[in-house]
């Protein structure tokens, strides 16, 4: 999980010009780091490429809009890292 987080944090720092040391596993990408939807497309692109997956952003957004999930579940970075690990594992299964 830690290496996944490190990769994500580095992508966010580079993509959004956010100081790396201000990005922690507890950071919420939107509420804490102020990442907007367009910047998040860049991040998703880089994550997809780095991990060889396709982040299901539309499904996550729909679940949040439908009240079936909170943004914390997907956009707090430790949770995002865990979901990426799940996607990578599912891809390799």
């Amino acid at each position: 999980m830690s290496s996944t987080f490190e990769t994500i944090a580095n992508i966010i720092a580079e993509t959004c010009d956010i100081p790396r040391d201000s990005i922690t596993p507890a950071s919420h990408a939107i509420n804490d780091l102020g990442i907007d939807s367009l910047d998040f497309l860049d991040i998703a692109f880089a994550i997809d490429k780095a991990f060889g997956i396709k982040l299901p952003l539309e499904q996550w957004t729909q679940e949040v809009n439908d009240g079936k999930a909170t943004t914390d579940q997907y956009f707090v970075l430790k949770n995002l890292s865990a979901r990426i690990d799940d996607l990578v594992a599912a891809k390799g299964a």
Partner: protein
Amino acid sequence: MRLEYFQLIDRIVDLNLADRTISSEATVPTASTIFEGHFPGYPLMPGVLLIETMAQTSGWLVVALNRFARMPFLAQVKEAKLRTFVTPGQQLSIEAHLEHDGSGFAVTEAKIRADGKLICDAKLTFRIVDFPNAEMVKWMRDTAAGIGLSVEARANV
């Protein structure tokens, strides 16, 4: 090109869904009110319209790949390089390929050549959303047919 209608592609000349590539052609009109201001006595195709030309070619690729199920909107232009002037009457060859098919977005790389010479290139990001209404779907299909884009006929390419 019909600049006044913002239709910058004359025809699709190749579409390869397997390779996720597309090629199109367009001829810069010899006369347009745009050239009266850009620039008086020195007509040049505006660079932003060259970028739009790459975006439209890329957009048709995205539309073809999703079989007219959803509509791409230009969201980001990266690393756009306008390498040389384009003048009225020039024939342009445009090509694009899908670099990444994301969830609700797509990234393409596109370039324009004239007489084999690279004119401009860019990396483009599109948001992909539902069509706003059935009329828009029909308009897109009609416009596609008008420029020779037939996804059904090329579905196995």
